[in-house]
């Protein structure tokens, strides 16, 4: 018997890398995922955002057939994760969020073991990745810090040369230099055409790496779209210095301009929505200076959560 018995020929499709329709996963009375629908395009870096307990890891584990969904339909690289599990796992590399590695093995031993299970590995690329991640593979895993263990898992994920990389909280415990190296590895993989499904609650990391994001809360998708689009939906702090007293009456009439403050000729507020009406109003005023803070994903994220609450 071959360990990969049942390995199907690869159906090459042009469909999405991941398609999730109505995914529900219950653990008894606990509803971990309450109906997720999303698609991840081939070749994109997809950010999967949400706080702990939002359902990110449960969704990922369903995609990998580690968990059996309560309801819903999943498709990964055109395959059914359960029926075509073997064929699929050969094309996907996974980095678990909760890392539990065999402590008595060395990094090299673990890489060799996974290599044998995957049917081989590129020794030159292994050494190259180890050097880039500043990782000593000769040490036992129990002797490594949590950050270095995560580097071992990162090395395994990027060594696999898979079509789809599923990374669950990949930079937990990594120092800033290694986080930067991780982002470089993500960009390189993307250039090779790899789809990357990046689960994280580190918003800055997703903001820098991802093309599109889904934001989860309590097992549901709160928002799904481009990073830029999500940022545009975020509130921005606006400050305007007028040559004279601010036109408070007109400013108060603008929709989406909340939390207004006036201090002499300085006007500040939080802008939710398009900035165009404000600019149109200011075009007819004597404005000395203006500051619009760049919204980041974190603000968008918090806004979504506040709105959902």
């Amino acid at each position, binding site marked *: 018997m071959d*360990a990969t018995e049942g390995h199907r020929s690869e159906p090459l499709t042009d469909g999405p890398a991941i398609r999730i329709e109505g995914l529900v996963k219950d653990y008894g009375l606990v509803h971990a995922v309450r109906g997720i629908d999303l698609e991840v395009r081939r070749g994109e870096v997809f950010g999967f955002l949400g706080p702990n307990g939002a359902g990110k890891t449960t969704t990922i584990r369903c995609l990998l057939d580690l968990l059996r969904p309560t309801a819903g339909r999943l498709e990964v690289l055109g395959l059914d994760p359960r029926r075509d599990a073997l064929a699929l796992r050969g094309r996907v590399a996974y980095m678990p969020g909760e890392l*539990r*590695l065999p402590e008595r093995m060395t990094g090299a031993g673990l890489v060799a073991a996974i290599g*044998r299970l995957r*049917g081989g590995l590129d020794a030159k690329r292994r050494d190259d990745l180890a050097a880039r991640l500043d990782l000593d593979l000769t040490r036992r895993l129990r002797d490594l810090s949590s950050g270095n263990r995560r580097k071992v898992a990162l090395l395994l994920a990027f060594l696999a040369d898979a079509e789809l990389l599923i990374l669950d909280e990949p930079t937990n415990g990594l120092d800033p230099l290694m986080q930067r190296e991780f982002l470089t590895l993500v960009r390189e993989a993307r250039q090779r055409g790899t789809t990357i499904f990046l689960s994280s609650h580190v918003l800055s990391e997703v903001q820098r790496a991802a093309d599109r994001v889904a934001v989860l809360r309590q097992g549901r998708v709160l928002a799904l779209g481009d990073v830029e689009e999500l940022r545009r939906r975020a509130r921005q702090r606006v400050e305007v210095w007028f040559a004279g007293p601010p036109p408070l009456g007109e400013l108060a009439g603008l929709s989406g301009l909340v939390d207004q403050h006036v201090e002499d000729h300085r006007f500040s507020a939080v802008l939710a929505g398009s900035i165009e009406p404000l600019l149109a109003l200011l075009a007819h005023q004597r404005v000395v200076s203006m500051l619009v803070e760049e919204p980041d994903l974190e603000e968008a994220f918090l806004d979504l959560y506040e709105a959902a609450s």
Partner: protein
Amino acid sequence: MSARWVELIGGPFRASWRAALGWSVAFVLLIVSTMAFWPAFRGSSGITTAIDQLPAPLLTAFGLEGFGTPAGYLRGGLYELVMPLCFAAAGVLFANSATASEEDSGRLELFVSQPVSRAAFFTGRAIAVFAWLGVLTMVALAVQLASDEVFAVPIDAGRVAATVVLCGLLGAFLAGLGLAVARFVARPQMVLSAGFGIAYTSYLILALFPLSSLLAPWREIAPWGWALGGDPLVNGGDAWRYVLLGVPAVLLAAVGVLAFERRDIRSA
């Protein structure tokens, strides 16, 4: 054998070498230290007379009948309780550490997400568990036969071999049970309690049922009785005893695969 199978069997086999070494050392110490006292018993009619004066039910319960004979000494000193208990414990613990304990700690996730089937993954682990029990059986047998030679115990080597192999099969049966339980529920405490519970209960049945005329006919109803109920040191091993322990061991290990195919994998 493909590289995958080398890893599927070799990985868990390597992971258990320390435990196996510990059991081997324990077997050597137990057997050699027990057999070293044989010369003292062989020449001492006083000790055997004193033991023979114990109440018959006690002699039966603790396997002390004929303690002055080579077979009685081996049975009372090692093969009534100590060695089968060691093999039972080794079987349950090997099965638990290769499956439920690994899954419960979250260490399986990285391996199960590789391109191998769940059935192949756990078949490899079951083979590793049975392989170590085979190695331990060989170690115990070799040390026992060598000790018999060194301490001049006049006993038939074939009957000794049958006894040691039946103890090993008792361990394999309980390992199979542990593997089956682990595939239904990845809870180490469930595997341990099922394995040790069956071992302890079946020992009590073999040891205590003969004390009741009503229960005596049922003394070989449980695995401990299947293995040692026929007093293999005196009578040798019946073929059906090997089959009754060995076949269910494999079947139990196999049956659980179906359950494992259907259930969720636990994470940390």
